[in-house]
């Protein structure tokens, strides 16, 4: 009773202090820009940036509703890449987890791929498939596939042997053990990997869009604005990237992760 009340007070104070800090920062930024301490052309005040954000999102932007088109393309590329990566990475990882030879074969290749910065792959892909939407999608897919494979392997190889034995002694075939033991037991690590992939993919996407996007995408938007010294659009773009990234990583995939973990009661045991 008291504990929950104290907890609520704590989280209330936390929100209050957090927003106070954000508000203070915004006011300082606004004042320094307005009073001319920093050049308001180079660093526009937040009020201007937010107003510009609304203009970009509205019908009077050029082209109309431009911001939403940029966000839409970026999210579409991200989701397509992550989906493609999962299709390749999850089966590979599960196979690695259940077979030593496959694991020994692919582990070095994955380690090497992981060490290559994603943007370094962009020139190769552009040479191979041309300058189009597939470049960012394939780069995100590679990154996702590596992360998913690693986690699917560690998730499925950490299943206690007696669980498999128990199923086998009850007469389950290989498929039965896979569907009833391996897949459910590695689900938490798969979901965590999915969240990580979205986070990493989002980071990679912004960089790749500067190089390999020709028309739309949030990354394209800010680097295109840089060419025109359009600082208002740059800051509006940064705010959008942070908000969309936060929403995807924490709100969408983070809550899925939390729900799955709660189902497994892993969160309670590890905390």
């Amino acid at each position, binding site marked *: 009773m008291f504990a929950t009340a104290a907890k609520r007070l704590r989280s209330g104070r*936390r929100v209050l202090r957090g927003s106070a800090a954000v508000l203070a920062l915004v006011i300082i930024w606004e004042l320094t820009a307005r009073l001319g301490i920093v050049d308001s052309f180079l660093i526009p005040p937040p009020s201007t940036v937010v107003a510009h954000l609304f203009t970009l999102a509205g019908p009077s932007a050029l082209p109309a509703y431009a911001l939403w088109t940029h966000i839409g393309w970026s999210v579409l590329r991200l989701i397509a890449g992550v989906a493609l990566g999962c299709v390749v990475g999850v089966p590979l990882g599960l196979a690695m987890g259940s077979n030593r030879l496959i694991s020994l074969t692919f582990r070095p290749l994955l380690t090497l791929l992981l060490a290559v910065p994603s943007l370094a792959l962009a020139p190769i892909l552009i040479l191979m498939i041309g300058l189009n939407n597939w470049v960012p999608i394939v780069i995100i897919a590679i990154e996702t596939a590596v992360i998913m494979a690693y986690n699917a392997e560690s998730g499925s190889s950490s299943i206690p042997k007696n669980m498999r034995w128990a199923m086998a002694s009850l007469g389950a075939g290989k498929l039965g053990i896979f569907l009833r033991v391996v897949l459910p037991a590695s689900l938490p690590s798969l979901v965590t990997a999915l969240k990580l992939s979205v986070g990493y993919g989002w980071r990679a996407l912004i960089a790749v869009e500067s190089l390999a996007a020709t028309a739309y995408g949030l990354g394209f938007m800010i680097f295109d604005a840089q060419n025109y010294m359009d600082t208002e659009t740059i800051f509006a773009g940064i705010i959008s990237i942070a908000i969309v990234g936060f929403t995807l990583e924490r709100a969408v995939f983070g809550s899925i992760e939390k729900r799955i973990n709660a189902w497994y009661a892993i969160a309670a045991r590890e905390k």
Partner: protein
Amino acid sequence: MSIVRTSSIAKRSAERVPASSPPSSGTKRLRAALLFAAPLIIASAIWEALVRIGVLDDRLTPAPTAIFARLFTLAGPDGNYLLWTNLGTSAARVLPALVIAAVLGTIIGVALGLSRKANDYLSAVLGFLLPLPAVAWTPVFVVSIGRGYNTMVIVLVLGAVFPILYNVMSGVQGITERHIWALQSLGGRRLDVLFKVILPGAWPAILTGLRLGMGHAWRTLVAVELLTSATLGIGALIFTSRSSMDTTTMYAAILAIAGAGLFIDHIFFRTWENRTLGRWGGIS
């Protein structure tokens, strides 16, 4: 590995693996190296064969032998030691950035770990900055301070600081309060507590943070060198050789980046980590 979720189940099952006839560490390491190299060698042999037969276009995907030959040329006097010049230039950007990020990250991380107030105030701001890729800041600094060294270092610091900060924070939070009380009861002052309990106690976490931060900075480097159109640097080498359609050099540069990244992560930091963790195994 930062990307792998380590659950308690995994740890327990890892401990249970029986060490069947422990060989000496030398032969063990050699065996591990061979096992690691074998699939890579086989994969490059297949690649080589495909290029030789003509299935793969050697202008788009040059044969591995050609790439390695180019790598050796670039590393030697015939290539004006270009590989080392570029790697050195990049290192001169990443290392100062890592030092700055380490200092900043440790200070903020210790503050966040020790003080609930600091945590309340700062976590909202940091939570907003965290999902923002460091690369996204590049246009701001390119427009305001130009495409120079400072822009690169600032963006690299932004890339490296968050993993350090969060690891230091959780490391500090994991310190048992009894250790602090013990020192205080012996008459230790606040600075004593900081330098004799908190920093040593959080050291393993700080090291992990440094390793991850270095990894992030190294990955950001390529993007930063591209976006600020640097002329020297191992990332810039990829893009300059691409624009002259010198794909062999491009692949050689990518291989060099991956190799250097692996070296820093697996050899340098892991050895350092193992050494400190081995020495201080009992702490926390």
